[in-house]
């Protein structure tokens, strides 16, 4: 049920993000969603793409430092309280969220929230038990 996220190490300087997106474009990789974590000197670009293995390979070939991380995608109706309903359960169960980001599905009805947990297995178990829709990687890559 886990989703693979690609993380790329980037220096904080003009052109470094452009280089990464160029490599992905040339390899015909489609980005489903992304986020950037940044510090004063460096950033980490986190991506969900349609072809994880290919993206991983072309980025490495082009000298990027790449990391694959397991994240969990949860689908909720795109309306007030959607995210809160998940956070409430996670809070009750004592599950820690390292970071999260989100996008809205093409249909516009649902939002997909990408979570990074310390313990993804436990989180999936809790989410499923509480009737949340956990989106498997294969489905997410094809959205």
């Amino acid at each position, binding site marked *: 049920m886990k989703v693979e996220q690609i993380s790329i*190490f980037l220096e904080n300087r003009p052109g470094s993000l452009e280089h990464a997106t160029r490599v992905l474009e040339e390899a015909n990789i489609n980005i489903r969603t992304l986020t950037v974590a*940044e510090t004063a000197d*460096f950033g980490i670009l986190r991506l969900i793409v349609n072809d994880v293995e290919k993206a991983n390979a072309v980025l*490495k070939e082009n000298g990027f*430092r790449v990391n694959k991380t397991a994240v969990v995608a949860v689908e909720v109706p795109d309306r007030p309280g959607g995210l809160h309903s998940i956070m409430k359960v996670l809070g009750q169960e004592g599950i820690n969220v390292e970071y999260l980001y989100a996008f809205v599905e093409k249909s516009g009805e649902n939002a997909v929230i990408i979570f990074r947990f310390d313990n993804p297995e436990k989180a999936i178990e809790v989410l499923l038990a509480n009737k949340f829709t956990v989106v498997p990687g294969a489905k997410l890559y094809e959205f």
Partner: protein
Amino acid sequence: MFYNEEFETLPREALQAMQIKRLQQVLQRVYHTVGHYKKSLDAAGVKPDDIKSLTDLRKLPFMTRSDLQNNYPFGLFAVPMSSVVRLHASAGTSGRSTVFGYTKRDVDTWSELMARSLVAAGLTKNDIVHNAFGYGLFTTGLGMHFGAEKIGASVIPMSGGNSKRQIMILQDFGPTAICCTPSYALHLAEQGGVLGVDMKALKLRVGIFGAEPCSQQVCDEIEKIYGITALNFYGLSEVMGPGIGMECLEGRNGMHIFEDHFLVETIDPQTGEVLPEGAEGELVFTTLTKEAFPLVRYRSGDISRLITDPCRCGRSHIKIERIVKRSDDMLIIRGVNVFPAQVEAVLTDIEGLEPHYQIIVDKSGALDSLELQVEVSEKTFSESGSVKELQNIERRIIKDMKDYLGVSARVKLVEPNTLQHTPGQAAKVIDKRRI
């Protein structure tokens, strides 16, 4: 003014007679007590008895920093540890640091030479000395301290850092002399400016500067800002610490080497050939009186020239010019000696780091700054691909640089292949400072 007029003004002939006698004693002693010297003299085919004059000195093999490192920590000590009363050491991780021992008599000699230095700068027991050199393993702080006490001056053992407190004490205690690196003097003046303190209004009369290069321009600037006389000393921890040479108040061109305790030569750093007096070359020192840690023909890495003209102060001892160049890749960061190889050792000791790095040295205000750019390795990022973990690595590097090398570094993780991968450590340094 002299602390020990007899020895400081000894006529050259008498001085040289004393030097050769002392040199012969040193050679006998090290040859028979320190394994390194027996090996190196035997390899060079020289016996201590072969050294009959000062010109015979050149028959003896050189010693370098790596000889010191290879004998880490106590391999070059010429006395048993029970006779050693003090240990000092240079920065560096285990095996890359160098350790110096002193007997009671060595400490007394050192104190006397520092007393001579301070008296040459015009200090007396009526002076209050603000010593802003770091105390501890670093030799300069304690060296200055013992010398100042020896002449009966009142010492303020400030050590480095805490600039605001330093300025408060400069105002409240009214020291008449300050000892620190020239860049720290400029830094204090900057801080004083921010606090609205007129540095000229302080009671300071003289500054004793060293542990890093000091150009005439910097000295002039310090003199102007503080309204003091700025004098330079020469020190080298391996040879003793401060107290090897001192600029006198009367001459003010070059630092007198206390030749009754040290022999100094200049050599061509490439060929090792001894240069005629007055030619620019690498300074080589031989200690004549040290008991615990004698050194024979130690290559200092400092480039200078010998000044043999008689000095108006009356000292018979020769002088060396201020040091502004090195024969190796040693960096001086806020008075601390740092070799790129030591930085590399710090990095490779941290698991997962690739030793692709660059050192960028610059000035931040008056003070030196060191930025270390380190490439993120595949291993590091695949195992610790989070901001938190990468920041932990940065913190670890900063801490190890401070703990092992005594240097505050700024660390910047960079993408692979952004740094020049040139072999050799010197290529990994960009020094933007102007000396």
